[in-house]
């Protein structure tokens, strides 16, 4: 079911946390709500499921306006960050709970059938007798997911579902959640502040900052063409390097530290003397490229498959490079590496992409 927030506003104690937000999640789509801590992700999520009441705007599930419905009537499934399983109930009872509070209450056999079906989908058939305290984090996560899905909700909301898992489980659950979402075809919103999670699990990513959605796009699109400096800086690990300076003659970019780089070809027409900043992603500085930059390696960080180099091109200008593992260079070496100039991002002084 298509989910829409129209001009949605939410205030706490009179101060707006989110103002006039518009968001559409298409039917069957999984959208990531990505943003730094405190930007209003959970608030948005809780308003969609009715835990918080919207202070303005409309929330539409398909053609149904649910803005004024209590959460009981919205038919959403929510997976909370700490799973919020009921500790006194078994896994089976936990999953059955949303069904048993329905009116009219489905028959016992019907409930049992539904629980079994969802347990099979989520691969927890063998845990049904246990209590939450007897489950690992990943198992609890699955139970919470089963409980959220058993009622066949119109929308599935996930609030940082992977935050409490270790790295390996996180990888596993990432693909599990995506598999289940695809299999059920449910419309879902995933709240996270982990960009890898957002990009790997979702069809589209909505990036949020200070209660505003800055950009909604597919992960690749957003990575390649961020709308502004914040998005560019937020996505990418290791992060992008920003170079401050101004345009110079002959299609060149002059850094404040006196270094020169060619401007990306699409920006050659800019008048000289305009202040801009360039963004250079680490993978665009390395062995190949249309321009060269030289400097001294000041820091090396092996990351297994790849290596991260910090190259000081001028005092105060550190360019970062990610390259396949190599041991021919080390800290202190002078290197001259290629810069993929046309893939560099450029921003004006307001941070908007040029």
């Amino acid at each position, binding site marked *: 079911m298509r989910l829409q927030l129209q001009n949605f506003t939410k205030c706490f104690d009179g101060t707006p946390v989110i103002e006039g937000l518009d968001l559409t999640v298409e039917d069957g789509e999984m959208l990531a709500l990505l943003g730094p801590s405190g930007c209003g992700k959970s608030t948005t999520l*809780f308003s969609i*499921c*009715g*835990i918080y009441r919207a202070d303005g705007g409309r929330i539409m599930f398909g053609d149904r306006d649910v803005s004024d419905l*209590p*959460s*009981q009537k*919205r*038919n*959403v*499934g*929510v997976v*909370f*960050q*700490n799973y*919020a*399983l*009921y*500790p*006194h*109930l078994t896994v089976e009872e936990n999953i059955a*709970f*949303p069904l*048993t*509070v*329905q009116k009219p209450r489905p028959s016992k056999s019907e409930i049992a059938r539904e629980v079994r079906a969802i347990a099979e989908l989520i691969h927890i058939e063998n845990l049904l007798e246990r209590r939450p*305290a007897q489950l690992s984090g990943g198992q609890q996560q699955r139970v919470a997911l089963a*409980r959220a899905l058993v*009622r066949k909700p119109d929308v599935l909301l996930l609030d940082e579902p992977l935050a409490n898992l270790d790295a390996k489980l996180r990888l596993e659950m990432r693909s599990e959640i995506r598999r289940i979402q695809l299999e059920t075809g449910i419309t879902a919103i995933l709240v996270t502040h982990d960009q890898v999670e957002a990009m790997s699990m979702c069809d589209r990513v909505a990036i949020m900052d200070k209660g505003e959605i800055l950009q909604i796009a597919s992960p690749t699109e957003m990575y390649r063409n961020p709308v502004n400096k914040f998005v560019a800086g937020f996505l990418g690990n290791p992060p992008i390097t920003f170079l401050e300076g101004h345009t110079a003659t002959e299609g060149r970019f002059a850094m404040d530290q006196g270094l020169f780089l060619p401007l990306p070809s699409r920006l050659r027409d800019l008048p000289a003397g305009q202040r801009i900043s360039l963004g250079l992603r680490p993978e665009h500085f390395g062995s190949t490229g249309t321009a060269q930059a030289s400097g001294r390696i000041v820091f090396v960080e092996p990351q297994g498959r790849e290596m991260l180099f910090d190259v000081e091109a001028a005092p105060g200008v550190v360019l970062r490079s990610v390259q396949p593992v190599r041991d021919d260079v080390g800290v202190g070496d002078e290197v001259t590496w290629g810069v993929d100039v046309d893939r560099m991002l450029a921003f004006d002084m307001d941070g908007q992409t040029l």
Partner: protein
Amino acid sequence: MSSSADLNTGVARKSRRSDRRRPRISGLGLALLAPALFLLTLFFFAPVVLTGIFAFTDLSTSTGIGRGQYVVTPNLLRQLGDQGLTEDDATAIASVSITIDEAGIARATEGGVDPDFLSEIADRFAGESFDDPRAFSRELRGLPNAPRRPRELTQTAEYFETSVLNTRFDNPEALTAQLADVAPDVSSDTIAWIVDRSYTGARFTTANFERLATQKETLRLIGNTALYVAATLGLFNVGLGLFLAIVLFYTPKPVTSFYSTLWLLPRITPLVLYAIMWKWFTWEDGFLPIVAEQFGLPSFNYMKGSVVTAWMTMISLNGFIGASFGLILFSGALRAIPMQQLWASEVDGANRWQQVRRIILPQMRWPILFVTSYQTLSLLSSYEQIWLTTNGGPGRTTTVWALEAFTTALSNYTGNLQYGLGAAMALVLVVVGLVLSIIYLRLFKFGELVSRPKIEL
């Protein structure tokens, strides 16, 4: 080489381990601990031990707390008469005899009788006995130095009268000898019986428990106590406490703190003030009866005027004290339930009632059990509130076990305080309390197994 080295370390390890296992008790440590242990014993065990001892005695105001004596009183003879002492034996024991002996002379001298007269009596009648006081008086009148006035004469005669009645003996042998002397016809068995019963001090007996086990009153007391504890606990300490805690849980914060304080008032008000307040509230011209009158409802002294209202008063006034305890404990336990669980249940479709019944209450098991057990014990042994208000009335309809024990042992109108019986009643309470504690402790363990405790006390 290496194997012997292994052996060595093995031995060393073993001895080190045994060192660790045996705790070192130093003399100094013991000496430092001793006062604490002593006080601990004194304050915790002494009351129970003393109660246990007193419970098996007939200690009362009349026996006194010290060593008793042996006295045959007219009262005792009457009692024994009811229990099979024959009329003849009783008369024989109560009889008065007159013997002119050293002791009599000495008593008379002390009493200020004319010495000349006395020496005449000694010369004339020494060693003689009379059965009839009047015959002795007649003989005395014949003596030259006899006083003129008949009253003086009778008084003098009385110094020579001896009777077992009302004479205090320090040991049973003396009394036995005296009784055998006075009433030679009474069988020695009967005398032994009388001597035994004439002891005025406290003695060991199981009569208290026999009495508790057989008297009808006991059943009533048990019934009253059970009703009192169950109703106060169920309606107020747990029921109202839980209800308020849940209502306050769903109420905005400022209101909550105000009401929490309000509900604490009964607990922090001095008991006497609280009792007076309830009197003002429920007596004839008090608040409730006046209000009731306005509405045309029966209006009378609710505290003592009828059995039903007395019970209602007693249960509510105790309940409001206990409710705050439950309220505080339950509120704490409620706040310990993660908010997200409650959100989850709402999103899952549960309404308020389902949320309370299915999510909140099951998780309140542990605090409910705690309040129940703790308050059962304190209600069982509390009587002060009842004593200060209904005082067990009307009649004895609201008398509970603890109050009865208290009045029996420490406060009643007849003035004869039966410490022994009171102690026996108290001991019963202690035993019941212990048994309940053990049961509750078991339950707690069980509770711990099923769900981890939410509150740490």
